[in-house]
Structures are given as C-alpha cells and as structure tokens.
C-alpha cells in the first residue's frame, strides 16, 4: 500500500481552508461541550443507541437541516460565480465540484432524510403502531445513511470532491478522465447511504402492511401513510439498480473493469441507462411522500376530508408504475431512435394525468372548506401554482423532439427546481410546521414562519423563473461562466439576487427553530390544529410507547370522527396492559462506524486496510445473528403515570382528560 500522505488533505484554496478550520472548530466545540456538560452518556443512551422511530426520525430531520445548509451554500456559491459574466470567484474545477455536491446532497442527503425522517416520526403513529416492524434495522438504516452522508461530505477537504455532476456520467466519471479519488467518494458514500435507504423501504412496507391498528384497512389509511407505502415499494424496486450501478462504477474505478469505460468494449450509455433507471423513480421517491404531506395539511386546514380519496390512491399507484417506465427521457438526445423516443415521450407525458388528478382533488378538497392560513397551509397553497409551472414545463420537456432544444439547458434546470423545490422542500417545511408540536411539544413561531414562507417563495421564483428564459436563449447548465456578449448577464444577475432572498428565507427558518426552542410556549395541546388522523390522538411530544392502548379505527380520518362522536378518546384504566418494547442497541452505530471506515479506505484504494476493516462488518453481522434480546415490558404503573401527566395538561384536548 503506497500512501501519498501529502495528497490526502486538500490545500491551497482559501474557501476550503476556511471550511477545514470551521470543521475542526465545530468538532472541538461539540466534543468540549459534551464533556463539559457531561452529556456523553445521555448522547449514547438517548440518541446513538435508540431504536425509537420518533428519535430516529428527528435525527434524520436534523441531518436534513444540516445538509440543506451545506447544499444551500454550494448553491449560493454557484449563483455568486455566475452573477456576472466572466467572473473569477470560482475556477472551473471548483465550480464543477460544487454543482456536483450540490446535486447529490440536495437530492440524497437533504430531501431523502427530511422525508424519511417525517415518515419515521409520523407513519407508525398514523397507523396506530408502537414502532416500525424492525426497530433495530431502522436504526441501522439511519446510521448507514448518516455514515454515507458524512463520508461524502468530508470529500472536499480530504482527498478531493467528486466533480462529474450528480449524474456522474461516464466516461467522464471514469478513471480515464477523472483519475483523482473524488469520484470514488461518489461511488462508495452513496452505496453506503443507499443500503440504508433500501432497508428503510423494506421496513416501511412491512410496517404498513402488517402493523396497522385494529380496523384500519388499506383504504382507511391516511394519505401520507399511503404515499409512504408506495414510496417504499418504489425504493425496493429502484435502489437495487443503483446499488449495482455504483458497484460497477466502483469496479471500473478501483479494479480496472470495463463496464462503462471507453476501452475494451465498455458502454458509457449503459451508465446513463442504469443511473436513470434508478434516478427517475428516485424523483418519485422524494415527490410522493411530499404529496402525502400536502394531502394531510390541506385536509386539516380546510376542515374537510380529502376529496377523491380513492382516485388519489389510484393516482399514486399509477405514478409509481409509470415512474419505472420513463427513464429514457433523460437522454432522448442519445439517439436511441425515433421509436424509443416516441414510446418514452408518451409514458412521460402520461405522468401528467395522475398528477393532474391529484391537483384537482386538492383544489376540490379546499372548495366548500374553511381555509385557515397557518404556515403549514401556506406552504401547501404555495406549492400548487409553483408546482403546476414545474409540471407543465415537464410535459414540454417530455416531448422528445422539443427536448432536443431544451436538453441540458437552464430551461431544464429551472424545470426540475420548479418540481423539486415546491414539490419537496415546500412539503418538508409544511410537514415540519405541521408536525413540529407532535415531535417536540411546542410549536414553531407562526409569525416567523410566515416571513420564512414569503421570503422563500418570492426568492425561489426570482431565482428560477429567469432560468427558463436563459435556457431558451441558449444558456447551458453546469457552465461555470459565460461571455459578456452572450446577453445572459441581466437574467443571471436577477437569479443571483433571488438566491439571496431564498437564503434569507432559510435563515429565518433556522432562527425560528432557535427562537421556538428557547421561547415558544410549552404545554400546547396534543391536538393544536384540530387535526384528523391518529398521530394527534396521543401526547405531544409522543411518549416512547406511542399509545397506551392501541386505538380502534372505523373510518378514514379516524381521530376527527372520534372527536365528532366523542368516543374512543378516554383511556379506561382497566384497559391498560403491559407494553412490550424493543431494547436499545449500539450495534447499528457500530456498523455505521465500520462501514464508514471501510468506505474511507476503499475511497483511497487502500485495499488491504479496507479488507481488514470489512472484517468488522462481518463481526457485526455475526453478533446480530446471535442476539436474542427480546426487548422489555413497560409495567402498567409506569404507563398510568405517564398517561395521567399529559392527559391533564392545560390546553390539552378536553376530551382527553380521563
């Protein structure tokens, strides 16, 4: 093993040096703080070893916020560089690294954990379960995701960032044109995180199919649970493809095989094909849960049940099937012939049909309702018009012949930001404002929330609307600069200004979290929004066993009807029984550490070291195989204690008082 010590740390760039210093200081601050406040034990017991789906969800969301920050800074740097023609703020190499990490982080390490986090927090509560089907696996999923995310994020200070775009097209991403280890990070970090996601998918399918409370048939499930189920099914269908694609990439880069290389018969088109076979379903993996969140929020704040519930379900199933049949529209220009392009144009445009059904159903849910403009609802309302713009431009891009003129231009970039920001980011914000009291027992500030909303939405439109026109003028994506004669300058400047407003919006959000943690009123009701589904039938924050007695469901919007009929809300003491709960485990965290170390060695192609570290993985699996810990039982007295506390809280739903 020939280690080039002088190449490991990236040096010479002031931006990177600054980040390195910041990272070191942050680590010192965290370690120092934990030691000073004697919080190491607390961290280990309450968080690192937890198998509680709510805590895992919160850790996912926290990672999402962090990664949003990182990805957002990447975005701002890009906007700064292109604000004026022929700027020299970033050089080409640096810009390439930044748009690559921006894409990867925003999709895989921001959108995914935010949504999976909300799924974790909410879904078991919505179906009236005590936890997910495999709590320890759930923890492993999170820690593998986190391990992959951290491995990916250190790339820019250690070893070099990936720089071939988030799509990492071959042959550019191969050793022939990218001899540095940057793209090894892409292959290996995403692999580790992807394994975690795959397990999440399996976990949630089983949870939703098998652990619904009494009476909750499939067609009585809340819409967010439905979308989670379908999303999980897409995850299980799509992520193995990515696993293979990344593994083949790893083989090409580390062991000199010829899957995607120019040499010896490799096919660069095959990479694009495999990448989008996963990549397009991935878009729906992030968009479907978002649709679920909007469905919950719109129904709650219109005080009506969801319009066309069944057609909503049919739509998401339809979207899920179509999601696997459209991947070629990402490379119409690869010239697979008019027959292929025609077929994939049609399947692509067909996606507009179920999506349109959903939009109209949402509109008609609000019709005859009483629309309350909470922050969560504002996000849902902002979503509809903005997403429609993303949708119609999507249809335009789906027409293969027209795509020859849009492909790889900023028109495309504008389109997918109009889909992903309203579709995912707005949904995440809606979900956070909506479920925050359920997670933490206090609300986010509504007034700050509205500033957050308006700054973000206006900033978003100013940033991305000009890009449609830039694209039609011939401006291409991923170009680090453009000439003064091109005439692109004014719109790029507008776009850059918009991104500052967008960032301000996000800053208000961060401040809102800080402010609310310190000053928001505690003791809020367990049902502050007068909501409709079961997660609101229990305490806020939710006690670790979720429900003292599992609720029984008779119809859709079960909790709403329980409140209407004033039944099923009171806890009878004699009904309380011992509750079986899973024990904490340090194994998932351990596995993430060994996976991370193995991955790191592989990135640097230190194969012997990686092989030794991989033994740690095998040991972990063997330990797991011999683990017969069957959890523990919560005694009735403890349950009574906990229940009597929250059921008497002032401001709590009156019906709840036993």
């Amino acid at each position, binding site marked *: 093993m020939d280690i080039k010590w002088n190449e490991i740390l990236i040096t010479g760039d002031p931006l990177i040096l600054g980040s390195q210093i910041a990272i070191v200081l942050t680590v010192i601050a965290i370690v120092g703080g934990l030691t000073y406040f004697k919080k190491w034990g607390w961290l280990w017991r309450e968080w690192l070893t937890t198998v509680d789906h709510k805590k895992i969800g919160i850790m996912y969301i926290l990672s999402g916020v962090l990664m949003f920050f990182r990805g957002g800074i990447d975005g701002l740097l890009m906007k700064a560089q292109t604000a004026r023609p022929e700027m020299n703020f970033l050089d080409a190499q640096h810009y390439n690294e930044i748009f690559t990490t921006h894409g990867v982080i925003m999709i895989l390490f921001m959108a995914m954990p935010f949504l999976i986090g909300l799924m974790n927090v909410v879904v078991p509560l919505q179906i009236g379960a005590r936890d997910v089907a495999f709590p320890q696996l759930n923890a492993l999923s999170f820690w593998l995701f986190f391990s992959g995310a951290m491995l990916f994020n250190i790339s820019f200070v250690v070893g070099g960032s990936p720089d071939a775009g988030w799509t990492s097209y071959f042959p550019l991403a191969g050793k022939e044109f990218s001899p540095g280890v940057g793209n090894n990070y892409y292959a290996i970090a995403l692999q580790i995180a992807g394994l975690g996601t795959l397990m999440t998918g399996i976990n949630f399918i089983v949870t939703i*199919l098998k652990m619904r409370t009494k009476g909750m048939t499939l067609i009585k499930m809340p819409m967010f649970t439905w979308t989670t189920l379908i999303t999980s099914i897409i995850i299980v*269908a799509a992520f193995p493809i990515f696993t293979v694609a990344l593994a083949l990439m790893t083989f090409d880069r580390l062991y000199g095989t010829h899957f995607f290389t120019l040499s010896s018969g490799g096919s660069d088109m*095959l990479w694009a094909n495999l990448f989008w*076979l996963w990549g397009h379903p991935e878009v729906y993996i992030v968009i479907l849960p978002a649709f679920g969140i909007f469905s919950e929020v719109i129904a709650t704040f219109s005080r009506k049940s969801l319009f066309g519930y069944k057609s909503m379900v049919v739509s998401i199933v339809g979207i899920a099937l179509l999601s696997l049949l459209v991947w070629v529209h990402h490379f119409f220009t690869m*010239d*697979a012939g*008019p027959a292929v392009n025609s077929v994939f144009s049609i399947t692509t445009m067909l996606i507009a049909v179920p999506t349109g059904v959903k939009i109209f159903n949402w509109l008609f849910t609000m019709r005859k309702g009483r629309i309350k403009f909470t922050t969560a609802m504002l996000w849902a309302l902002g979503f509809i018009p903005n997403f429609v713009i993303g949708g119609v431009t999507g249809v335009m891009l789906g027409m293969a012949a027209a795509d020859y003129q849009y492909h790889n231009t900023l028109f495309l970039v504008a389109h997918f930001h109009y889909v992903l920001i309203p579709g995912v980011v707005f949904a995440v914000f809606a979900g956070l404002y909506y479920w925050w009291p359920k997670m933490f027992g206090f609300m986010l500030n509504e007034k700050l929330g509205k500033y957050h909303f308006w700054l973000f939405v206006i900033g978003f439109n100013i940033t991305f609307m000009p890009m449609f026109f830039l694209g039609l003028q011939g401006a291409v994506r991923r170009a680090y600069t453009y000439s003064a004669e091109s005439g692109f300058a004014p719109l790029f400047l507008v776009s850059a200004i918009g991104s500052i407003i967008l960032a301000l919006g996000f800053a208000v959000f961060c401040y809102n979290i800080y402010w609310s943690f310190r000053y928001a009123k505690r003791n809020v009701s367990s049902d502050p929004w007068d909501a409709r589904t079961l997660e609101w039938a229990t305490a806020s924050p939710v006690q670790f066993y979720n429900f003292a007695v599992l609720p029984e469901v008779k119809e859709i919007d079960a909790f709403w009807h329980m409140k209407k009929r004033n039944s099923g809300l009171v806890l009878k003491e004699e009904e309380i029984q011992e509750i079986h709960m899973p024990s904490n485990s340090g194994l998932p965290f351990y596995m993430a550490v060994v996976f991370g170390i193995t991955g790191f060695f592989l990135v640097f192609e230190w194969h012997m070291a990686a092989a030794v570290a991989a033994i740690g993985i095998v040991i972990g699996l063997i330990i797991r195989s011999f683990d017969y810990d069957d959890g523990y039982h919560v005694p009735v007295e403890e349950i009574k204690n906990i229940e009597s506390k929250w059921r008497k809280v002032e401001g709590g739903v009156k019906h709840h008082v036993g």
Partner: protein
Amino acid sequence: MEYKTNSKYPISHIIGFFLSLLLTFAAVFVALEAQLSFTIVMWIIGSLAVLQAGLQLFMFMHVTEGEDGKTNIINMAYSAFVAIVIVAGSVWVLTSGHAAH
C-alpha cells in the same frame, strides 16, 4: 392459509426436484443438440428457465402459504415486472437507433 405440515413424505419436494432435473436436461438438449435457430433456442430455454423458477417458488418456497400469501404473490409478480422492464428495456434502448452502430 395452508401450511404443508401434515404429509408424511416430502412428495412435493421430490416431484419438484425431478421436474427441475428434467427441465435442466431439456434445456441442455435444446441448446446443444437440437438444430434450431438461435432465436428459437433462446425462447425455448428461456421459457424452461421461467418454468423452473416457478417450480422452485411454488414447490420449494411455498410462496402462497401463510397470511401473506397474496402479498408474496403480488410482490413476486411486481418484481418480475420490474426485472423484465430493466432487462428488456435496457437491451432495447441501448441497441436501437443510430447510437447502436
């Protein structure tokens, strides 16, 4: 919900085993001995493989048993659908048009 627990001899296993041997040798014969065109051979041995996979699923793995029998069937059918999309789709997309030159 049916579980195969009562029979004294593993009849379905034995039948399954012999059938799979039969199918294997039939495939070898068709591929190497019968003088057929490549396309026909591939269709025949492909069908034999699918048959044999079905045999394993039903005779050995009891895919339909238990309270989730239906779920399992849907799961396997869906996976097969995805598999066909991936294999047939990739081959079709990457071998048609000018790009295939």
